[in-house]
């Protein structure tokens, strides 16, 4: 995978473009920086963790390591849906913490330059998870701040 911010790689010509992986949760479209994504895998049953916050689905076996899975819908305060086989787990790596994000489906890889992004209006408490918004073909795409999305140690250790 190449770094999209490299001007030579960016085909649209605009400098400083970054690639994002976009995915769907219900009717909403979200995206994360593609450089944080390690892999995408199908849904498998999780082993639930006692006393974990509700948005932590549990843990799965990722080739011999224990991978915690966050249900992104619950994390973002959306409606809870029962996991189904069509769901996917996006494995992300943020500052060497590796976690899985359960989403409904992966849709596309998008490129945005910083000037296409707007900061979200500060309205809801959940907005700390959304770093920026952008419009693409009349759809609103939300860019997630993964460092906020992944539960901090304080949140899980309660």
């Amino acid at each position, binding site marked *: 995978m190449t770094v999209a911010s490299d001007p030579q790689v960016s085909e649209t010509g605009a400098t400083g473009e970054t690639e994002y992986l976009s995915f769907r949760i219900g009717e909403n479209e979200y995206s994360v920086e593609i450089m944080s994504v390690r892999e995408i895998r199908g849904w498998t*049953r999780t*082993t*639930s*963790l*006692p*006393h*974990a916050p509700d948005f*932590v689905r*549990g*843990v*799965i*076996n990722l080739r*011999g*390591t*224990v*991978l*915690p899975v966050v249900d992104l819908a619950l994390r973002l305060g959306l409606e809870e849906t029962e996991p189904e086989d069509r769901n996917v787990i996006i494995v992300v790596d943020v500052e060497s*913490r*590796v*976690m899985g994000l359960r989403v409904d489906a992966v849709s596309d890889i998008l490129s945005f330059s910083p000037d296409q992004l707007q900061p979200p209006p500060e309205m809801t408490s959940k907005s700390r998870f959304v770093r920026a918004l952008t419009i693409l073909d009349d759809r609103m795409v939300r860019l997630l701040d993964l460092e906020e999305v992944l539960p901090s*140690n*304080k949140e*899980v*250790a*309660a």
Partner: protein
Amino acid sequence: MSDPMQEIMASFFIECEELHESLVDALQALADGDADVETINVAFRAVHSIKGGAGAFGLDDLVNFAHQFETVMDACRSGDLAMDDPLNSLFLRCSDVLSDLIRCSRDGEPIDTAMSGGLIEELAAYVSSDNEGGAEPEEEIDFQPMTLDLGELGGPGDDMAVDLPSLDDLPPINLDFPSTSPGLLVEFRPDRELYESGNEPLFLIKTLADLGPCQTTVTLDPPKSIEDLKNLGGRLSWSILVETVSQPDAVAEIFEFTDGLCQLNVTPQQDAEPDAVISELTEETTPVVTPQADDIPTAAPPAPAETSKANPIDSPSTKRSESKPAKASPTVRVDLERIERLVNLVGELVINQAMLSQSIAQEDIPPNSPVSAGLDEFMQLTRNIQESVMMIRAQPVKSLFQRMSRIVRESSAAIDKRVRLVTDGETTEIDKTAIERLADPLTHMIRNAVDHGLENAATRRERGKNEQGEIRLSAAHRSGRVVIEVADDGGGIDREKVRAKAIEKGLIAEDAALSESETDQLLFLPGFSTATEVSSLSGRGVGMDVVRTQISSLGGRVSIESSPGVGTTFSISLPLTLAVLDGMVITVAGETLVIPLNAIVETLSLAVDDLRTVAEGQKVLRVREQFVSVLDLGTELGYRAQIPVEEGTIALLISPEEGVLVALLVDTIEDQRQVVIKGMQESYGRVPGVAAATILGDGQIALILDPNDLIQNSSGDDVVILQKKAS
């Protein structure tokens, strides 16, 4: 890294660590009064070997210090200086500085001469007032590996008697001997190993000359046949007549490093007649082959570790045989990373074996078929392999305890308290990683015990205690865990003061009702320090909360026990192994879980009558004549609401502490098997009641419970509450 010198130096420093360890051991034995004749020799040899190696690498500061250290120790060794407490404590401090010097030399850090200077003077004070006895230690010895100039001696030839010219250069012997001194005849025949291990006969002979004027003759044995050339061995022998009043042991001492590497014969001479002796010697000597010249330069670096373990000197004048010094079982140094890899692979093997046995079980293969028999054998082998691999990583806690004894010495000296460290269970083995990562928290706990735990001498006297405080550091295996305790016999935790401090710092409300153990737990809160005045030891910004974090990152727990006026005990409890455990696979509320087998005392099938309700929602179980509190595992883990107990419900009896039983209710018991521990701390953080996770044969993850943690958190919610307040 391609520099061979670098590698040799690296191995020298590793050897230094071992030597330093045996030095500290010996000094400790001396301090405790359970030393024997050999103990001081062991200490001396350790320092001497460090000095020798350091000399070869030109580490002058280290050499100088070791030399001075060794000089005084040598005086003790020869009985010229009596060991007493001040001297012993000086030795211990010297050994501390020695280890600092070694570390500085190793890391290439600048050496602070102020550090060693004072001690060198102290040491010098001991020897200057004493040394009439003549047991002056060797002068600076340059351990540069060097060979005998064999070329000069020529090839196979006639018997030759060569005077060693360099003996003329020896310093004049100023000891005033009566001219009619009886003298000693020293017959010295080095074996090949002596040359190979980098020893230099010339130095030995020079040292011998310190005892008195020497008449030295060297003999070269020619090979009798071509066959002899193949049997490589020492061909040179020396016969030295020393005019001295010294006893044969003095000679034996000089040659003690060559113990087992040569034939040595010391005979007191009444009438010195060297010529006769020599002729006799040359006649009886058997021809052996000269060590080949190119053998020597490539010889292995000196192995001081081995010589330091040499046998005690036999009584002199007995003919020495070629018997090697009793060797400790040979060891290999292995990169820790390789072991890690092996451990991981074995982990995978165990998982694989579980998968295999699961699929064989599904095939409905009769139990007496070859496949089943083969599988059984395979499981047995896997288990053996796994145990062996775990043993590679396990190391005795001794080295850790030795470091702690230094901390006690230093910290007690800094605040002028007399403290004795008693250690127990030094041979208890724990995982090497755990040993390394325990050093910091233990250091802190020891300092705390010295600084806060023990009262000052005046208070101790008032309370009728020995003025010298005692800190007991012990390690033991207890119910599948390693328990390390730091206990002091001080005043105990001043709970009033702790409480006042916590209120002052806003950690608890002024009217908070806290039990004694809850109050003790306050010590673990971040930013807590009870020392009213910040002494040189405390107030370093590291609190017990850091200790707790460090311990729990190892999967361990810290607990406090304290009684006023009697003392405080901190216990660290750690899991025994870090990779594989025997577990019972159970299910509860549809989840598969693993409970460490060693935590389970008994499994029971309940009858409804066995359960009695003592209070709302709290039940006890009658097991024989004992009442046991009951926890529903599903409820404890938050998987379900409490369910009524039915006939035949399975209960696991767990004993979190001696004499305490708790019954855990589970739905089914599935299996009993080995599971590989997969850490969750790094990726997720600590889950209360859960020790780790594992992967079952079907690829699913199952959580491994920590029953003790589970029970503690259920019975005493206080810990959790306190943590919440703090954060």
